[in-house]
């Protein structure tokens, strides 16, 4: 297993060699070719770390410049006017829009994806399941710009009726009231994001459901459980952490999604109680749509909002990775 110990005189007997042994093992390369090759590959690894550090440093640096000039509170201001005198901008609206649209997306995508994953692994005939899994894999590769084009030219016109309906029956809640603008609000964005992250959540949960020990399922069946009871008692408990991490990966995608949101959303720098009315934007969408006419100050302000997005996605992805790492054997996420 441990190749590099081949070069040491006595291979270590323990599974985890001590630090000194590791160093000796790595340094076992004495030929010039070996040293160059080790240097190259280690250098690549270090280069990767340098890139990450550079990303953090440069974004923070430009963001600090922008926030330093910001006359309003960066986190609570409902305005985006970095070129005004005085420059005032804040991320409150963007944070609201990003969180809300992601929540809608997750609320739709997670149950549906788990359903498809179950369909592929437990309900569909084996061969059909394989074909569907393959197609879902392919769909994960459809670029977001195409989803955006489809969303704005096909999905949006379809949603008029649904919006009116929600307004008629659920308008009293305030959350689903609708003033009658084109259906290009956060709710539509949530639906589109849900469609976009379906494939990835499905793929990961499918892998997890595949790994459920056959014994557990057969035991449940032998006790007379129906198929649903097998799933509830054997499959879902086993796959819970996998589903959670799959959802987090999907959430990471939804948070950072740019072009599709920029095309579909009709942004308004304000917060509305109703999801169906214009109001809110997302971090990524705001960057893409404001970038065109941004001055240097404007660009720095956008970079500052990008930094916030970066930190949020880091936290979400980190949480997902931690859950995966804790139960490593279920991980299907090696993409």
């Amino acid at each position: 297993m441990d190749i590099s110990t081949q070069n040491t005189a006595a291979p270590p007997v323990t599974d985890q060699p001590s630090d000194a042994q590791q160093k000796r093992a790595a340094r076992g390369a004495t030929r010039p070719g070996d040293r160059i090759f080790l240097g190259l590959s280690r250098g690549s690894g270090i280069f990767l770390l340098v890139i990450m550090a550079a990303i953090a440093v440069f974004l923070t640096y430009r963001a600090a410049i922008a926030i330093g000039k910001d006359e309003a509170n960066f986190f609570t201001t409902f305005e985006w006017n970095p070129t005004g005198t005085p420059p005032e901008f804040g991320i409150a609206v963007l944070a609201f829009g990003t969180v809300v649209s992601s929540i809608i997306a997750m609320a739709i995508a997670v149950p549906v994806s788990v359903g498809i994953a179950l369909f592929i692994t437990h309900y569909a005939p084996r061969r059909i399941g394989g074909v569907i899994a393959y197609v879902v894999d392919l769909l994960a590769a459809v670029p977001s710009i195409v989803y955006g084009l489809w969303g704005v030219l096909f999905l949006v016109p379809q949603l008029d009726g649904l919006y009116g309906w929600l307004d008629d029956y659920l308008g009293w809640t305030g959350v689903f009231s609708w003033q009658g603008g084109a259906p290009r609000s956060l709710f539509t964005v949530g639906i589109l994001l849900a469609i976009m992250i379906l494939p990835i959540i499905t793929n990961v949960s499918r892998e997890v459901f595949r790994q459920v020990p056959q014994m557990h399922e057969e035991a449940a069946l032998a006790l007379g459980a129906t198929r649903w009871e097998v799933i509830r008692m054997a499959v879902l408990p086993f796959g819970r952490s996998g589903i959670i991490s799959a959802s987090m990966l999907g959430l990471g995608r939804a948070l950072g999604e740019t072009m599709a949101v920029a095309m579909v959303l009709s942004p308004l720098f304000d917060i509305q109680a109703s999801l169906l009315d214009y109001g809110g934007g997302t971090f990524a969408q705001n960057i893409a749509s404001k970038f065109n006419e941004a001055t240097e100050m404007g660009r720095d302000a956008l970079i500052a909002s990008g930094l916030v997005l970066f930190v949020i996605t880091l936290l979400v992805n980190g949480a997902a990775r931690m859950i995966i790492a804790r139960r490593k054997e279920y991980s299907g996420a090696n993409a």
Partner: protein
Amino acid sequence: MSNATLPDTQGKRPSSLRGATLPKWFPWAVAAGSIVLGLGISAAAGLESDIQWGLIAAVLFVLGSYGIAAKVEGRRQAKDRVATSLVWVAFILAVLPLASLIWETVKRGVKVLDGYFLTHSMGIVGDTEPGGGIYHAILGTLEQVGLATLIAVPIGVLTAIYLVEYGRGRLAKAVTFFVDVMTGIPSIVAGLFVLSLWIITLGMGYSGFAGSMALTILMLPVVVRSTEEMLKLVPNELREASLALGVPKWRTILKVVLPTSIGGITTGVMLAVARIAGETAPVLLLVWVTPLINANPFSDPQASLPVYIYLQYANSGGEGAAYDRAWAAALVLILFIMILNMAARGLARWKAPKTGR
């Protein structure tokens, strides 16, 4: 089952050991019934959207199967039926938009997609006029993606080699962790980073190469992870045999380990290329836009397919000609990515290491 034990009672009286069961066609009947009812209700209420009757039918389907099954088969079986119908509904709910996405793109894309479209640029064609093509965009995308691949593949493969063949210590752990972190970077953030470093701080102009750098950042973690997986699949006996013959480690890696896993590595690279070829946001920020052919990726703005789609939509002023071009370009992009994907998966199956799962 009852056939084997009680052949003569089949069909005459229900076995006392089994509860009443609904016939096999029951779910299909309920599905058909609820679709008809859904259509009826929406026609009666004058609902105009397809989504509405679909949702009504879905709800009717789930409730209907529960109600009837609960009456005939009992609560537990009914719950099972509900779960089954919910899974089916979820499947259909998801397949419909995805199928519609592909269908719409193909249907609207083939309208203007021809040889002329593929070999001409938008140089003299106004945004709202018909005509023009995507030659400049294809050229730009190929160059940007090619450059990114040229940078990302050596670095990514070497990093993976380091992690699998050498890495034991803290550095390897850090690299593994940050590769994971990098996987989750939103593309727009990668774009902003290159913007702040290359364009704002170093004062360089917009160029295809700037876009390539952002694409490299997006591609690197994918290449590292997939190569890592493939190298781990190479049997240790091969390495040991080579080392035992006195072959230096670096030659062992170059001549034994890499050739064994080259199929899988290629697959990973192709999937990574497919992933970055559709990236729009960083290209929009860094390469800027142009309707002209620019074959030099190192200076001046270039076009690219995803950005072309976006521009045709955004600058169209609602004109049909521009939308047609956008759909056609989307179709070309999807075809490119799908072919890469399928080729990659085919290659993976064909060249899979023998010890694979």
